[in-house]
């Protein structure tokens, strides 16, 4: 048990931390496009897009990729809106390198996930679309080449693909690819009913774009990495389609039962969410119902959007956070360690978000006290919603919850800086240590606006460690590796994770706050290959690289602004 004065000190310290939106000063100015800003005809104009941190040039600084949508009524000849890649300059600014990187594609971009699928040492990028997906192979020279057709992961035109994650489902050292699918509206939404034309086209009496209910659900995909840049569609063979119709959105990979095999959780809108349990034979079984993660505690279908995982109570198992629609609460599924979960959202103090429509979901230890906090970004479907006159508006504040270390969280939004209370209609969110100084920053894709970059203005009181995994026998990015950190009397776990939040990608490096511990007593990595490595007595407050089966770790790219204590 921690001494009371220590606890008080940290609680006070965390309360003083202020987030500021530095996106504009950082040069992140590309405006999101997602259909009509005043009126929206189709649901695809409402859902917005994800955002992804990726160190594409391997300089030790995470860069930012922003997925963009488009409009149905683009003027002929007008330049279409594109996705954007911003290179991290390491001084708090970013440079738009979209064109030179070869990423200036356009369309109804949805989500993004990162993984070095060919194990060449450079993280690749997968972008989902309403329409055919794009797999960008990182050539290692600062440019990408789109290879989705050749790789066999483009999906189908007319299908609405949503969340994605690279995951080595069979632990063969090659990253497979899971792609969720929201609905199957057909090309150009031609068969979708008009705004306000049915019971699924209304919101509190306001006619809005139809869906997802009433529309044909999409089907999820699993592509097995065959090597040589080729994937094989094993969606049917793997059993992931042995489920009822789902409107799948956010994708989260995690080993929820600690059996060493990656499982997949999919947040679904208006239908049961899915927990694909890895049966270790190339197949999956949906255990959402039995585990208690398909619905909320009472079996209520929810409008699942974003997802995140963390062991927020230091129990040794990963818990799940899921955001939902307005007039509902998020889910905080506490992992009971027996293959089942309990939704603790109310007991944890997260139940008072009923006016918020949550999208991006993040666990992040922003004050580095060693306990995962929660940031949820919110926003309603369209500006038309405001006509309903409800407490839930198109633009909404974000919600930051501080972990009180007793299973409860405290909403500290109002005291954590104007960047959190500013009103936006947020969608995808991702977290990264952009200056390698232990301060976590959050990038948010804001509907019809330039993105936000929420950055702490002061250094958190707690110490920290950032860990980049390099697989050898395992996939090169070490995706799926289970990391255990023992420091200051605490034992924490997390995993290297592709995808997550709402159609987004956070820093592949895993960040742990360690409170007042100045060193990591023991670092353990359980690699997807089965290899288990230990390192001891690592000085805190640095980004390190650990390599599979290597006894040494090394420090990388400690930025000059780092404030040593």
């Amino acid at each position, binding site marked *: 048990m921690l001494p009371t004065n220590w606890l008080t000190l940290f609680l006070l310290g965390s309360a003083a931390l202020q987030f500021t939106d530095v996106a504009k000063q950082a040069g992140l100015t590309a405006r999101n496009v997602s259909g009509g800003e005043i009126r929206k005809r189709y649901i695809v104009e409402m859902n917005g897009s994800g955002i992804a941190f990726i160190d594409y040039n391997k300089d030790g600084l995470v860069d930012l990729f922003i997925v963009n949508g488009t409009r149905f009524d683009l003027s002929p000849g007008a330049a279409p809106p594109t996705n954007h890649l911003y290179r991290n300059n390491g001084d708090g600014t970013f440079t738009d390198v979209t064109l030179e990187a070869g990423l200036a594609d356009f369309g109804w971009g949805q989500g993004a996930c990162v993984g070095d699928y060919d194990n060449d040492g450079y993280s690749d990028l997968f972008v989902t679309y309403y329409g055919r997906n794009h797999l960008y192979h990182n050539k290692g020279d600062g440019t990408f080449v789109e290879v989705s057709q050749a790789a066999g992961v483009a999906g189908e035109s007319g299908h609405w693909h949503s969340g994605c994650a690279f995951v080595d489902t069979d632990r063969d050292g090659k990253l497979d690819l899971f792609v969720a699918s929201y609905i199957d509206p057909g090309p150009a939404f031609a068969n979708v009913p008009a705004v306000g034309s049915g019971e699924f086209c209304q919101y509190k009496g306001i006619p809005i774009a139809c869906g997802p209910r009433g529309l044909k659900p999409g089907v999820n995909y699993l592509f097995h990495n065959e090597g040589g840049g080729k994937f094989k569609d094993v969606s049917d063979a793997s059993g992931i389609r042995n489920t009822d119709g789902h409107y799948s959105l956010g994708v989260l990979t995690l080993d929820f039962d600690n059996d060493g095999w990656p499982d997949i959780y999919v947040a679904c809108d208006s239908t049961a969410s899915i927990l694909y349990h890895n049966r270790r034979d190339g197949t999956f079984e949906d255990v959402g119902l039995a585990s208690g993660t398909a619905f909320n505690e009472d079996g*209520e279908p929810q409008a699942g959007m974003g997802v995140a995982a963390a062991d927020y109570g230091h129990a040794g198992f990963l818990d799940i956070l899921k955001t939902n629609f307005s007039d509902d609460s998020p889910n905080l599924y506490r992992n009971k360690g027996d293959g089942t979960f309990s939704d603790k959202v109310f007991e944890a103090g997260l139940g008072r978000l009923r006016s918020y429509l949550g999208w991006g979901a993040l666990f992040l230890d922003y004050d580095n006290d060693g306990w995962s906090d929660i940031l949820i970004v919110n926003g309603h479907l369209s500006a038309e919603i405001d006509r309903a006159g409800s407490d*839930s508006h198109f633009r909404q504040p974000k919600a930051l919850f501080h972990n009180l270390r007793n299973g409860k969280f405290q909403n500290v939004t109002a005291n954590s800086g104007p960047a959190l209370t500013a009103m936006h209609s947020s969608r995808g969110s991702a977290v990264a240590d952009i200056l390698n100084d232990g301060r976590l920053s959050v990038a948010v894709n804001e509907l019809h606006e330039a993105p936000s970059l929420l950055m702490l203005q002061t250094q958190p009181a707690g110490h920290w460690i950032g860990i980049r995994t390099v697989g050898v026998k395992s996939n090169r990015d070490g995706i799926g590796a289970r990391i255990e950190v023992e420091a200051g009397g605490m034992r924490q776990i997390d995993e290297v994770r592709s995808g997550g939040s709402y159609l987004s990608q956070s820093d592949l490096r895993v960040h742990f706050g360690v409170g007042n511990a100045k060193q990591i007593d023991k670092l353990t990595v359980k690699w997807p290959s089965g290899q288990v490595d230990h390192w001891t007595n690592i000085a805190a407050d640095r980004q390190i690289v650990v390599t599979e089966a290597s006894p040494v770790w090394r420090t990388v790219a400690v930025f000059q602004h780092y404030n040593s204590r």
Partner: protein
Amino acid sequence: MTRTMKKLYSMNGIFSGALIVASLCPVPAAWAQRPSEAELKTLSSALPLIQQQSWSAAEASLQEGMASFPHSALLSNALGIVYERQHRQPDAIRAFEQAVEWLPNFTAAQIHLASLHAERGECHRANPLFLAAAANTTDEGALSEAGLGLAECKNLTGAAQVLEKARSASPSPAIIFNLALVLYKTSEFDAALSMLETLPHGPEQERAEVLYLRGKLLKALQKPGSAASLAQACRQHAQEDYCKDAAVEMIATEQLTEAVTLLESANKGLSAPSVSLLCALGLAQFRLGRYQASIRSYSSALNIDPQLDAAREGLGFLLYITGDLEQARSIVEQGPMRPTVDFYLPYLRALVLYRTSTALWPEALSALAQSLRSNANFAASYFLRGKIDLEQGNETRALSDFQNAAKLDPTYPLPYYKMSQIYLRQGRREEAEKARKRFAALGNQREDELLAKQAQALLLTHASH
């Protein structure tokens, strides 16, 4: 009589005032024999005293006349009226009985006597007199009065026949309306609506009571326009019943924004805020997601009447559903904990305690036990108890509770979800799949929605009381 009619027909409003029995003046068709000039002279001398409400003088004058005409039905009837005005019911009854005895077809006396019996709840005496009076007259006023009297005595068939006779004699708006009202009461909705439509177009059709009755009939017939008609009635005359029924119908038909506008306006039109309207307003605001406004409405209702279970339940539920568990608990626990308390309040308390903390689950179970003592057939109580059982690892008892809940309410989907979960964990895959399919077939409604419906139903039940 008019007073009692109003009590029965809350919606007949001004029309009931238009129905005046010719109490003192003879009804020609009712006379079997003509009164003498001397009798009429005696009555004429008493009339000014009656009009001046000089009851003692009028009584003395009539008694004097009776001395001269000991079997005068006319004077005995007048004397009965004087007694009635002095609230001397036994004397009045005796006088009217004598009048009827001496002149069996004296319509006015029959109606007066019948009305007095009706007021005393002696409908078995009143009904034959009303029917006899109606049989012997073609006077629309007398017929109308007899019809309404029969309606008051629950002889709706008789009332309809008599009012129809009145309408044939004189299709006045008042008679048409009252006939339509009686037909509504006899569930002859089509006929009632058709009758109402015979009212002349214009102001008569736009009267609040007519709009209200039309709205009720359209609702009964499941025809469109009910909410609009009820709302128009409320706008015409911000009477609590009109506005409450309009709001209920608007909420039921998802016209939530309109309901809020109507109720806010209606409440301003009342001399004092109405608890019913505030509760209905809170419900509509809740359904619209205007949680803060809804909390204010329910709080206002509760401030006006802290004993009102409906307002406390509404506010407690709203706070529970919006996650303000601390406040919800406070509101619910401030409620009356009398042994006879409605089952819903302890159930709601259990819900709040369950969500607040695992440490409060024993208290939640006690609250559930209290709720079940008041209502052992409320499926949701068993469901909640089953959830607690399951969380505490008692799968057997949990399964029993879920099965019980499903048995009590076969349309309640949530127990099937939990049952399928338990079966799966127990490896009973076939039963799990069966329960899951049942759960899916029932539409796996959200508990929020189910609870909101429960709360709404309870609120409306309270409101109708």
